[in-house]
């Protein structure tokens, strides 16, 4: 977006030009009279000095680290005595002051005796000279209280008519007071919006507590502390004692610098050699040290504070330099904007430092109060950009959601089909295994037995026929087992009876059928059904072949959770403790496989095989 970026840069340029212009306004010379010399009487720690001083008198320049009282006497000779009220205008006067003209008190503010009390020296003063007070030879007496390191002093005053003085005063007042008010209000507003953003813009996808974006918090902190720092100009009597207020005032600058740097780093996801973590640590250490330095400065060790400022510079300058370098080389659009704002503020800061620390100008204004507003604009830019991106993303997601859902469904469908295919394949394999086993155990063994019978030549025709019929029965039972619904014990027994009916009739055994209609047994699957079929068939074969019984009773009952199948005959019986025959062994084996309990009781006249299914 080259258009947007050039517009923004030109805005910054315009802002710089207007700030420069505002700064220059205070220096505009007008027609009225300016008093530049005075007879000074200075009292510091009980020592009194008399000399002729040049105005403006910058206290900290002449009395570094000291505090005291001063009186300035300025003579004002006039040729014509004005007929209208005149005005006396000081760009700066204080910390507390008293102004007299020809012995008459014109204006006073603050306690002249007690140090470190309210500071009235921060804003321009316009004093009215009533008609009749001025003579041809006039003496202006100014008494001040000067606290140390609080920019005390007396500016060179202007005297003149309403039309001459008011424009000068208004211009200074506009910048010093109104400008400050505007900056404070804007900063508080931006800070509050940033705080609200920090509080409300929670990442809902993080289940572990509320995750907020620290970018907004740093912006809020910067704006709040900046408004505190700048707004102190408007407070003659701060809400805290001087001691604490000064510490807060100094720390506010540190917090502002630290927050701005962190904001800049987070805004672009800073990955430079001076990592965010290291920056954060360095700044935190500086802020903690700042408290000590501020206290030391209160106790007269101003050097500590100087070192602290230097430390702030040592952290900030390399970071800003790296930041700007990286922005120039391969920075994003936002990165370059933030870098420009940082560089701009740095330049303004240097200018302010030169004005106040090097030139010791009395009544000058910091320009940084205005330049820092750029960060507020940047924050707005970030928020708008994010909002636009989020909206675009939401629109994109909404437009593609149907497609994504369809794709997911497709994926699910295909994986389901794959699973189903696998399951079917598995089922086929199981079925094949079962059929092969059936063939092996049933038909196969019968047919090979028939072959042996024929080969041996000893078996009769009937015997071979019997074996072959058995093998056909086996096949029929196998096929029946395939059709039987899993778990249908009643169906299984009914079918077995139907298939064996001719044999039972041939053996002349009376069958007592006592089979209930039983609900399907859940645990019994197709394979289990075949095992159960084998077990019942084996038991019936035993009766038919060995028992010589005249009655056979087949029972099936559901007893609670269990299903009991009982096959009882009145044949000769056998010894169940004898080494198990092959058939009995197989019975036990199959019972174990399907998890059934098998009980065989036998004595002459009664043999019972009881299969209990859970």
């Amino acid at each position, binding site marked *: 977006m080259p258009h947007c970026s050039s517009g923004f840069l030109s805005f910054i340029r315009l802002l710089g030009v207007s700030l420069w212009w505002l700064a220059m306004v205070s220096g505009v010379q007008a027609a009225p009279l300016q008093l530049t010399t005075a007879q000074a009487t200075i009292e510091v720690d009980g020592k009194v000095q008399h000399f002729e001083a040049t105005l403006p008198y910058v206290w900290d320049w002449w009395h570094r680290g000291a505090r005291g009282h001063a009186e300035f006497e300025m003579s004002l000779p006039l040729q014509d005595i004005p007929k209208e009220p005149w005005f006396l205008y000081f760009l700066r006067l204080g910390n507390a002051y008293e102004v007299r003209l020809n012995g008459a008190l014109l204006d006073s503010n603050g306690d002249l005796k007690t140090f470190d009390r309210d500071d009235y020296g921060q804003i321009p003063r316009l004093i009215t000279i009533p008609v009749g007070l001025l003579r041809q030879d006039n003496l202006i007496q100014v008494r001040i209280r000067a606290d140390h390191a609080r920019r005390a002093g007396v500016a060179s005053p202007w005297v003149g008519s309403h039309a001459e003085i008011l424009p000068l005063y208004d211009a200074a007042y506009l910048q010093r007071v109104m400008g400050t008010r505007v900056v404070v209000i804007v900063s508080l507003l931006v800070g509050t919006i940033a705080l609200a953003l920090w509080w409300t813009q929670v990442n809902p996808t993080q289940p572990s507590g509320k995750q907020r974006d620290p970018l907004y918090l740093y912006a809020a902190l910067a704006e709040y502390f900046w408004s505190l720092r700048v707004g102190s100009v408007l407070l003659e009597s701060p809400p805290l004692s001087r001691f604490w207020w000064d510490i807060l005032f100094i720390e506010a600058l540190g917090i502002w610098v630290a927050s701005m740097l962190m904001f800049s780093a987070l805004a672009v996801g800073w990955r430079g050699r001076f990592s965010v973590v290291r920056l954060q640590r360095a700044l935190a250490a500086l802020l903690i040290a700042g408290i000590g330095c501020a206290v030391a400065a209160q106790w007269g060790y101003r050097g500590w504070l100087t070192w602290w400022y230097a430390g702030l510079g040592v952290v900030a300058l390399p970071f800003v330099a790296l930041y700007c370098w990286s922005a120039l080389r391969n920075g994003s659009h936002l990165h370059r904007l933030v870098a420009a704002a940082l560089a701009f503020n740095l330049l303004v800061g240097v200018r302010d430092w030169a004005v106040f620390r090097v030139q010791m100008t009395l009544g000058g204004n910091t320009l940084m109060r205005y330049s820092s507003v750029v960060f507020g604009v940047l924050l707005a830019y970030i928020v708008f950009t994010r909002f636009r991106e989020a909206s675009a993303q939401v629109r994109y997601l909404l437009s593609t959601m149907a497609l994504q859902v369809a794709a997911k469904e497709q994926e699910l469908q295909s994986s389901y089909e794959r699973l189903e295919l696998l399951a079917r394949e598995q089922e086929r394999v199981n079925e094949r295994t079962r059929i092969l086993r059936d063939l092996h155990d049933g038909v196969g063994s019968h047919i090979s037995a028939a072959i042996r019978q024929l080969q041996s030549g000893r078996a009769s025709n009937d015997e071979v026929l019997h074996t072959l019929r058995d093998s056909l029965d086996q*096949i*029929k039972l196998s096929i*029946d087992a395939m059709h039987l619904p899993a778990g249908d014990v*009643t169906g299984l027994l009914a*079918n077995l*009876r139907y298939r064996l*009916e001719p044999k039972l009739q041939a053996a002349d055994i009376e069958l007592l059928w006592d089979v*209930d*209609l039983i609900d399907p047994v859940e645990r019994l699957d197709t394979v289990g059904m075949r095992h159960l079929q084998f077990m019942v068939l084996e038991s019936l074969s035993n009766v038919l072949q060995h028992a010589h019984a005249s009655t056979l009773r087949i029972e099936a009952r559901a007893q609670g959770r269990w299903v009991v199948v009982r096959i009882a005959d009145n044949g000769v019986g056998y010894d169940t403790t004898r080494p198990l025959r092959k058939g009995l062994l197989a019975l036990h084996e199959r019972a174990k496989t399907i998890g059934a309990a098998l009980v065989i009781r036998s004595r002459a006249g009664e043999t019972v095989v009881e299969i209990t299914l859970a």
Partner: protein
Amino acid sequence: MWRVLIVEDDAQMRDFFAASVSRCDRLELAASMGSVGEARAWLDNAKHHVDVVLVDLGLPDGSGLEVIRYARQLHPECEPLVISMFGDEDNVLASIEAGALGYIHKDSTPENVAETILEMKQGASPISPMIARRVLSKYLSMHATRWPAQLQQGPAALKNTASAMGDGQAGRNAPEPVLLSGKEQEVLELIARGFSYAETARLQGVSVHTVRTHIKSLYGKLAVHSKNEAVYEAVKLGLLPSYSSGRAN
């Protein structure tokens, strides 16, 4: 004397059945052949008279079911019996629906063959418990799917619909469902539980003959139903003009 037609492609088997029929003095072998084509040709001849058809299902040029349908169509008085290796329910049920009234096992003895044919002519149809179960569930599902609303309202509604269907409305809607009487259902249930005809008859307090007649009539109804159903499906698919539209034209 009942005239018997045998359609079986296995020559050995065909000879066995032919011999079994010939041995019985109450049966007469009308003809024996090994393919659907030959059977159709034989049945096409109006002079040929047949009472019983023994049909194997797996024929070289088609299914024995075709022969059964064809025989029932041209000679409605004849009673087909299916020759089944295993008497397994799928094949038997399909045969019954095609119009067969029973089945005969390939491993039967010659006496068995004749006996089964004669019993069928006297009104008995064989049924295994598994087939009984399938027939039962088929009837029940027919009731449930065709008349779910009437089932909920009770048997009276069922009866009303049945009579309404009787006066030619069937073609317009679903095929005319076949009703299972309470007695028939009980008989089927007992057989499905493994009870023999004799035991079933005793438990039901009827004669064995009655039980057998029940089974045979059930088979008949099933065949009628399946025919109706085929017509219904064909109409639905647009293969045949519906009764109602036919009348409107």
